[in-house]
């Protein structure tokens, strides 16, 4: 090869302009093709097929980086048509098919736990229509939330669900896991905004569940709800029709700190009942506060305090009229440290501790598990105490950052997966936590999905009859459970 370096290519190609030979993908492709690779290349003539070990390594995990399951192949269809073509031939491949958007899931959803082919939808990123009259848009499944937000903004409309992975996650993943976010206390989760889903089944047939007119078509039944939250177990999504709302005229952000959980809870209960109807009620516990304050993101929160972050929005006159009463409510509940603003820069500062928390976990620890339980608000103190006690006993660091308004807890357990026994300790704590959550009337997941991470806890919530009934749904769509096996139900094996 060295000889090729001796002469600039311009000598061969003529002209003074430098030209350079490109290292094309083909020049490093493995010469031996497996039968699977051969079949996949035939199914995706324009898209990309990845089969080399170093090409699979990047697809071994989702946002739970410590769990690694290598697929046998990854395909990147170049458009929806090619994805449908792949699905037509997928049954004959005889291996599991796992859909993947940006791979930010926190439940092990878009990971090939039973091997097989990962279908990466990164090329399906067209926003096909924005209809400001009907307040809906049509997007492909690989469109990321940040791009959708930025595209909608000039039209004065927005798509409310706002998971923390918004800068990168895709609509496909959002619909598959019925994503939520900080503002879903008032606005609701993804299912409230999906009007229709276009999906391809394993036989290649393309189906529409709803459409721009939502459920108000020939079918009265809310057919599309089968698809939302199905975690890739039913079909491959290609596009969606999403409901939009007018951008709120005015937003006020409040931050208050409380000396103890009792006063914090008083504030949460008062906020939930208040006529201002907050869009978001977020909470950071004292361990989260300590983490922020000992980092470069410190923003002066009192030691040992609970932090509440509240947002109200709507028509300017209406929202402005409610500002003082919300501030008064926060003080009355026991805070002498209430700050609020309607200026973007200051609002960002108030959000800082809440937004920084997620990333700081990564700075503190090589791995973490984040749970997603939803509990009745009255059980908050009890469940939090359980998290603290269990974590302290096991010598595991725990930080709570969560959506307090709707009781959606996110206890984060920080650990090092390279230390023998640490992961097992965290899994044991998670199991005890889940048991208690169910006992107090809560449930497993608010917004992250069950995936691979929480499938073992399903029997805690559902009896055998219920599990059988639920399993019959994916069986109707793909009888051999070829789509995303071992997810949601830990006995959902694909049998070729």
């Amino acid at each position, binding site marked *: 090869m060295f000889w090729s370096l001796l002469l600039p290519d311009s000598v061969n190609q003529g002209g003074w302009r430098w030209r350079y030979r490109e290292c094309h993908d083909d020049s*490093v492709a493995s010469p031996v093709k497996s039968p699977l690779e051969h079949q996949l290349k035939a199914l995706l003539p324009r898209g990309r097929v990845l089969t080399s*070990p*170093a*090409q699979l390594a990047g697809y071994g995990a989702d946002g739970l*980086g410590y769990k690694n399951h290598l697929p046998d192949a990854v395909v990147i269809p170049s458009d929806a048509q090619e994805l449908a073509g792949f699905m037509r031939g997928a049954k004959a491949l005889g291996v599991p098919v796992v859909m993947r958007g940006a791979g930010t899931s926190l439940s092990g959803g878009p990971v090939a736990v039973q091997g097989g082919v990962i279908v990466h939808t*990164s090329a399906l990123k067209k926003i096909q229509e924005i209809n400001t009259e009907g307040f809906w848009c049509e997007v492909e499944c690989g469109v990321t939330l940040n791009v959708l937000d930025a595209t909608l903004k000039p039209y004065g409309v927005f798509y409310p669900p706002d998971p923390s992975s918004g800068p990168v996650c895709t609509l496909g993943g959002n619909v598959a896991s019925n994503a939520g976010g900080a503002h879903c206390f008032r606005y609701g989760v993804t299912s409230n905004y999906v009007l229709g889903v276009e999906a391809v089944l394993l036989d290649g047939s393309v189906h529409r569940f709803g459409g721009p007119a939502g459920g108000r078509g020939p079918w009265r039944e809310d057919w599309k709800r089968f698809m939302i939250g199905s975690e890739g177990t039913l079909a491959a999504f290609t596009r969606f029709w999403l409901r939009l709302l007018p951008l709120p005229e005015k937003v006020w952000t409040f931050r208050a700190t409380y000396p103890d959980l009792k006063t914090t809870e008083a504030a949460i209960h008062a906020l939930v009942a208040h006529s201002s109807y907050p869009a978001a009620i977020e909470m950071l516990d004292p361990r989260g506060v300590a983490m922020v304050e000992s980092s470069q993101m410190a923003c002066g929160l009192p030691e040992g305090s609970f932090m509440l972050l509240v947002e109200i929005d709507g028509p300017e006159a209406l929202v402005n009229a409610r500002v003082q009463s919300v501030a008064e409510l926060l003080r009355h509940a026991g805070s002498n440290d209430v700050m609020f603003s309607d200026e973007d820069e200051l609002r960002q500062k108030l959000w800082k501790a809440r937004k920084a928390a997620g990333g700081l*976990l*990564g700075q503190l620890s090589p791995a973490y598990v984040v749970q997603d339980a939803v509990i009745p608000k009255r059980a908050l103190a009890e469940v939090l105490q359980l998290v603290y006690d269990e974590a302290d006993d096991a010598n595991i660091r725990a930080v709570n950052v969560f959506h307090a308004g709707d009781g959606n807890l996110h206890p984060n357990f920080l650990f090092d997966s390279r230390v023998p026994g640490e992961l097992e300790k965290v899994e044991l704590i998670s199991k005890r936590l889940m048991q208690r959550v169910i006992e107090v009337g809560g449930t497993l997941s608010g917004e992250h999905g069950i995936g691979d991470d929480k499938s073992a806890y399903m029997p805690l919530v559902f009896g055998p009859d219920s599990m059988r009934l639920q399993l019959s749904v994916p069986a109707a769509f793909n009888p051999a459970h070829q789509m995303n096996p071992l997810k949601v139900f830990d006995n959902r094996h694909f049998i070729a």
Partner: protein
Amino acid sequence: MSTEAPPTNYFSNCTHCGFCLAVCPTYKLTGDENNSPRGRLRLWSEEAAGRLPQDEWTDFYTAECVGCLACETACPATVPYGEIFERIRHEHVASNRFSPKLQLRLAAAAVAHPTLFNLALLPARLLRRAGLGLHRFLFPGSPSVLKSTAAYADELMQRHRPTGPRVAFLTGCLMEAMFREINFATVRVLIENNVQVIIPEGQGCCGAFQEHTGLDGVEALREQNRRAFGTLDVDAIVSNSSGCGYALGKALQPGKQVRDVLGFLGELSPVRRQRGRDDGTRVYVDLPCHLVHGQKAAGIPANVLDATGYRWELAPKAKDCCGSGGVYNIQKPENASAILADKSAFLNEAEGAPVILGTSNHVCMMQWHSAGATGLVSRPYEVRHIIQLLDPGENFSIPSNSPQP
């Protein structure tokens, strides 16, 4: 390039959250997760742990990285991606897993000898002066052919005798050898703003060239610059190229900070240029990656941009990479051109007559110029360094109300 062994938790604070995907130019281009920061980190760490054998694809994805460092800004876990990437690239070059192109090897050898490099590029300066661009990267300009920036700065210091803050100025290698007119303009703008300009003798290439190519020699250049800049009694060390400034900063830290000259001027409220009332010029400001993601500056200060006297706005996607990546547009021209195509498309419709694309790094300027030369942008536009838009020209004097030390 530091030579001590990497710490054991070298890769491990990447929690695989994926926030880097959305800002990575090669992921956006290919949609392949291996071609993203978290993908590359996974490949490197798996290989380091012995779970993944050396693979041509690991080499391929490593070579694909532009090194724009947008992922560092996006990373909530503050993974030092740039540092890791540089180390891996150096290892790959050292073990022949990756070979920089011949042109780059030659240039890397040449920049280590500034006198030779200046002499070698003398014909290129002559050609640019004569208005003969001849290459897609050579934006128009009129560099001095023989007089060096150091000699010029001495001359102007004698003539104007500024009394304000003292700065040491990194003249750079390609900037001095090819685009010297930008250095001259920088000296004029600084002195007009009553800044005393010192060009330290014995300064060398910042080392960015070696960092970008993965070739040996970074540490020798850093040591040379530590000797030239490390003990100076000055108020600031400034650079007019964000990439060079970032690289020099790595050599001098801890202890000395390197400032981007525009950021430094922002603190002085620079002299404002007057333009005609009917001047229809519109400046679109692009922010170099190594300014915002490398040096972690917020941008180019608004008062500096206002001082150009022109109507300006940030270019769309101003914090995204233009594809230059130091030498990426030579190493991977097709990728670089695809990245630029997306960035530069707005120029075809941009308002203003004339339209100026303003930035603060000469390698970005080369890349932006190539958008016109290769037909990505079909309407006329100029590429200028922001410092050139503040240039008072040869006949200036220091205003009497300049801030005093």
